[in-house]
């Protein structure tokens, strides 16, 4: 579904550039939840943002749902983006639109008609359990509710892929947990492939089927969640696990930051 082949990316900077990704190869298969963990600055957001072309890469090739991102062109990229939802740590909802208006936004971009839009918005409000907040504005919603709106908006066009950039990192554990449960439900019931990145090992370990570990732009380890988190090969991965609260030895709550 998403295939990174030997991807490298360097951000230009005065002193020769920052290598954000180095020779990363990764395959996300259809209908799975793949999680990427790593410390701050490891290149997680960069990796994710390549998938819908918010960022470009220098070397390697990236194919998303059969589309080669190097040759897709403007039209191809637009189609791909309408087939790929994305949610963010800080939600990024439009302040001038209420909940229904925010969810309707991507549908308006696609040129749907009013009745179709209204019907789809109702459906989505049901999925994210926000029917009674339909006419509220983002300003009065809690973080968890805002993320639900963002999820509904991302799913509006029935995308095959959902990209999650630190989707639960600003939320408390309970609210974040509920969001993760919702993502899992969406994956299971709608068959949406999810690529999520997080510095919270707990988030990744909770819903992902497979996991990759990024360290300074290199993907040092990947595999089934049980294998990577249960029997990590790399010292770095062990360190990440030991400093987090998962795996039956809850330390003093210490985020992997």
């Amino acid at each position, binding site marked *: 579904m998403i295939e990174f082949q030997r991807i490298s990316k360097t951000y230009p900077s005065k002193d020769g550039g920052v290598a954000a990704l180095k020779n990363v190869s990764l395959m996300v298969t259809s209908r799975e939840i793949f999680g990427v963990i790593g410390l701050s600055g490891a290149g997680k957001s960069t990796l994710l943002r390549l998938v*819908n072309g*918010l960022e470009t890469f220098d070397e390697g090739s990236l194919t998303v749902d059969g589309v080669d991102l190097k040759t897709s062109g403007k039209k191809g990229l*637009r*189609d791909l*983006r*309408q087939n*790929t*939802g*994305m949610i*963010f740590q*800080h939600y*990024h*909802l*439009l*302040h*001038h639109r209420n909940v229904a208006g925010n969810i309707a*936004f*991507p549908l*308006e*971009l*696609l040129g749907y008609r009013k009745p179709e839009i209204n019907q789809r918005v109702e459906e989505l409000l049901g999925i994210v359990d926000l029917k009674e907040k339909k006419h509220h*504005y983002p*300003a*009065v919603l809690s973080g968890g509710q805002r993320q639900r709106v*963002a999820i509904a*908006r991302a799913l509006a*066009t029935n995308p095959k892929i959902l*990209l999650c950039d630190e989707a639960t990192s600003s939320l408390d554990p309970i609210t974040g947990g509920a969001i993760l449960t919702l993502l899992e439900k969406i994956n299971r019931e709608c068959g949406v492939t999810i690529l999520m990145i997080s510095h919270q090992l707990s988030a990744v370990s909770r819903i992902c089927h497979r996991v990759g570990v990024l360290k300074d732009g290199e993907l040092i380890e990947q595999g089934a969640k049980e294998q990577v988190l249960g029997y990590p090969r790399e010292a770095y991965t062990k360190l990440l696990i030991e400093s987090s609260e998962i795996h039956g030895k809850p330390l003093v709550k210490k985020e992997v930051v």
Partner: protein
Amino acid sequence: MERLIQLLIPALGETLYMSILATLFGVVFGTILGVLLKVTERGYIAPNPAAHRVLSYIVNIGRSFPFVILMIAIMPLTRVVAGTTIGTGAAVVPLSLATIPFFARVVESALGDIEYGLVEAAQSMGATNGEIIRKVLLPESVPALVLGITITFVNVVGYSAMAGVVGGGGLGDLAIRYGYHRFDQQVMLSTIVVLVVLVTTVQWTGSFVSNTLNRRRS
């Protein structure tokens, strides 16, 4: 009293005519210019350093002209656009021209206050640059733009006081002709009162509308 009213009413009419028209043109063209200025910025949605630099120069030059000088300097242009270089209509041309770059900066700064994440979210949904401008940037900044229009209008009323130079009339002209040249304190004072009331009303209305719009978003 009668005399005062007969002097003030037409002058107020001229001031309103010039200020409203100039604000209108200033807002329309200033918005276009301001949007272009913002989107061509480095790292924004349509980065184009060369275009950005040229636009920025134009705006800076436009804004650094003292209004009286601008009014006289662009007379040939005024003649082409308005058909004449004197009168209230002719004064609208330099007033608009002075307003456009001012409002362009107002727009640029209002757009700059929008979280870039909103733009990226729209991009992630496949929005084109045109859609981002029409459906994200401008609607998100409406409350700020309303305040900007208010400030602009008050500014234009101030500039229009100098329209007398080209026979534009208006309250400023009245104050200069009667209050200054003929030492008519009564006219001078009542002109000031009318201007204060006008500016206060406009400012109050602008703030009220902007606040209402902001409150509606919660």
